[in-house]
Each structure stands twice: as C-alpha cells, then as structure tokens.
C-alpha cells in the first residue's frame, strides 16, 4: 500500500459535551475508497467533518498529506458534501453550480429550495466534484435521494476520481449503498470503529450488502449485550 493520504490516529470527537467517537484509527491511501457504515447517530457526519477540517478532534490527530486538515485544504483539493440540506435555499442553482470552478455546471435558474430533493443532491455533488485535481473526496450519504441515473453517474464519478489518485471517504447508514464500492469498510458502532478490508469480508468476489449488514448486526448486538457479572 502506498503512503496514506489521510491518516486518523487515535481520534476522539465530541459534539457539544457528548463524546461521539472514541479512539478512532484508520488510514486511506490514494486510489483507495473507505466506506463508513453505522446506524443513524453513530457519528459518521462528525467524523467526515473532522476529516474536512470543519471540526477539531478533542484528542488524537488527523493528517491529510501530513498536515492538519485545515492547512491541507490550501494544498490538496478537497470535495466535501454533507447533503442537500446544506445548500442555501434562496440561491439560484446556476449561481451555486458556478461556485467551485467559476463555470456554471447547470443552466437551471430556479432557486435551490424549489428543486426536488434528488436534484438538489445532484447539484451539490456535481458542484463539489467539479473541482479539478481532487486529492480527497469526502461524501456523506451521497446516494440519498438520487434516481437510478443519478446514482449510476455518482458511482462512475467516484471510480474515476479514485482512479485519478484521489482518496475517497464515503459514509452511509445503508450497507447496500456501499457494497462492492469500497476497498476498506469502517463500522461505527457505540462510539468505536472497526476497520475491515474488503478481502477480509469476502475472499470470493465483491463485498455484498448482506455481508456488510451481517457484520453491522453482529457489532450492534455486541454493543447492546448486557454486561456479564462474574460468578
């Protein structure tokens, strides 16, 4: 494996006063895709925002090409998108679409709030992914709300960005969205992360949604098991 573009070392993250993630460690190299899977509220969004430099870890270090994320964004082109609800509704789609590169990615003149959810999601994704020479792609629930064509476009674009050397981090609560799309899988359950490589999950062929769902179920059951008392 080549040197990691993104490294997360013993990171703990807090949201308000609540510890969301504890002692998280993983690394993603260029040309690799990491999928973060976890139930709602597991801390996936918080982890992604920390990777994008929007949140500072309470403990531990995050490095992008050896630099803290906030410094790294000046050197490494980053595509980060947290979902259609982060787009300001009063802005016209055409104007928003031109913010990444200066060139409009859509002729659509309507305000964002008047677009359908899938169109908003696609607008947000296309805007951030239009940045040239991406080194790091960080997408939160990217398939949410997309139709078949949109989902196919997204999958192809993610593959293309990865093949051009980007490290990709995706998060989803739905294992079927990430099945077969990632080289590494990070399961976030009960504040802890469990990192598994794709070939460890399935030695024969691509990782299926059923395999990912099984692992997630097992981790959830382990996390909810009552503590045993010594006899």
């Amino acid at each position, binding site marked *: 494996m080549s040197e990691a573009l993104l490294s997360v070392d013993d990171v703990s993250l807090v949201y308000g006063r609540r510890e969301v993630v504890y002692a998280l460690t993983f690394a993603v190299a260029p040309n690799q895709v990491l999928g973060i899977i976890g139930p709602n509220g597991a801390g996936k969004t918080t982890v992604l925002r920390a990777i994008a430099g929007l949140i500072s870890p309470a403990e531990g270090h995050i490095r992008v090409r050896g630099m803290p994320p906030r410094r790294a*964004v000046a050197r490494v082109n980053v595509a980060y998108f947290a979902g259609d*609800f982060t787009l300001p509704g009063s802005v016209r789609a055409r*104007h*928003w679409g031109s913010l990444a590169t200066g060139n409009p990615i859509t002729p659509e003149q309507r305000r964002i709030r008047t677009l359908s959810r899938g169109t908003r999601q696609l607008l947000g994704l296309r805007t951030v992914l239009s940045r040239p020479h991406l080194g790091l792609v960080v997408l939160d629930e990217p398939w949410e709300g997309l139709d078949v064509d949109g989902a196919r476009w997204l999958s192809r674009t993610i593959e293309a960005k990865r093949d051009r050397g980007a490290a990709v981090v995706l998060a989803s609560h739905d294992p079927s969205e990430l099945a077969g799309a990632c080289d590494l899988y990070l399961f976030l359950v009960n504040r802890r992360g469990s990192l598994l490589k794709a070939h460890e999950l399935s030695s024969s062929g691509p990782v299926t949604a059923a395999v990912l769902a099984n692992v997630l179920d097992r981790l959830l059951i382990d996390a909810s098991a009552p503590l045993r008392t010594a006899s």
Partner: protein
Amino acid sequence: MRFLYAVRYFHVVPVVPPLFVVAFAIAVVAGAMRLMNDPSGAIDALTPVLLLQLFVAASGFRFAARRGYYDLLLTSSTPRWQIALAHCLVSILPGIVSWVCIGALEAAASRGTRWLSIAPGTCAACIAASLLAWGVATFSSRTATTVVWLLVLTIPSIARVASPVQLVGTTWSTGNHVMLFTVCAGALIAFGAAMVSIVRGSAPLEAAQ
C-alpha cells in the same frame, strides 16, 4: 484572488437579505429629502442608517456555517482569516455605502460648509456599530443579536454608556469621551474575538447527531 473568491461566495450566498438593502435605500432617500429641506439635518438623516446597520451587520457567521451553507468555502483553499474578513466586509458594506451617500448629500446640500457626517463621533459610531454588530452576531443568530440591541437602545442607563447612536454628530470638543472609548473598545474586542472564533473554531453541523 482567494479573498475575491470569498467575497464572490458571500455575494452568491447572501449575507445581507435583499429586503435590508431596500431598507437602506429608503433610509438614504428619506435622508436626502431631509437634507434638501434642511442641510443641518445630517444627524436625523444618519440615525436610521446607523440603527439599520446595527441589525443588518449582525449577519451571524456561525449560524449559517452550522447549517453547512459555507462548507464549500471553508473546504476551499481560501484561508479562514480571509473568509472572516470577506464576511465582515460584505455584511457591513450596505451600511457603510449608505453612510457615505448621506455624507456626500450633506456636503452637496450645505455646499461644503457642514461635515457632521464625518465628525469623529459619527465615524466612530458607524465603524464601531458595524464591527460590534458583526462581531457579536458571529456567536449567535441575527434574532438573538437583535434582542441584545433592543435592550441596549431602549434601557436608558445602558444606552447612555453603550449606544453608538448617541455618538452621531459629536466632535472631539463636544463628545462624550468615555462613551467614545467604550464603544470603540467594545467594537474592537468583538471584532477580534469573532475573527479568532472563525479562524480557530469548529463548524459542527446542526443536523448531525
């Protein structure tokens, strides 16, 4: 270039709602009419502009950042201090432009004999009110800041020492130096704290967790 990108971003993602810009235009037109009738009425013309500025410049950086509206900008190569500066500039610009307009109108109406619009107290009031409003609102929403301003402006004991409106038109000789110092120092502290908060602070998503 990066600073200009930030300015353009805040132009596309409006920091000042269009309705407020219209309000400034109305205040300037009303001020122009007042000055045409009475060239010494600059204080009356400037007071609505200053009051508007207290509310308009309170644009609430963090509130929008926590909704994810600035994610695209915050993950670009633009340094955070330039983002903060651009946000401040775009937030206070309509009020500053209105102030300059009133000043030009006063000079024109009085044929250059009256300059209350650029008296030291007026300058301090306009700049301090702009920075104070922007700085305080960085830590809260526009609504919360509006409540604070209403209290400052309407409670006489607080207004006497902290209301920037009281400074309009005062000169060094006639001015209340304590209030001048209080307002300017408060503005600088609020501006500095807001800059540090934007540069070093986190922007967790409201919808997350």
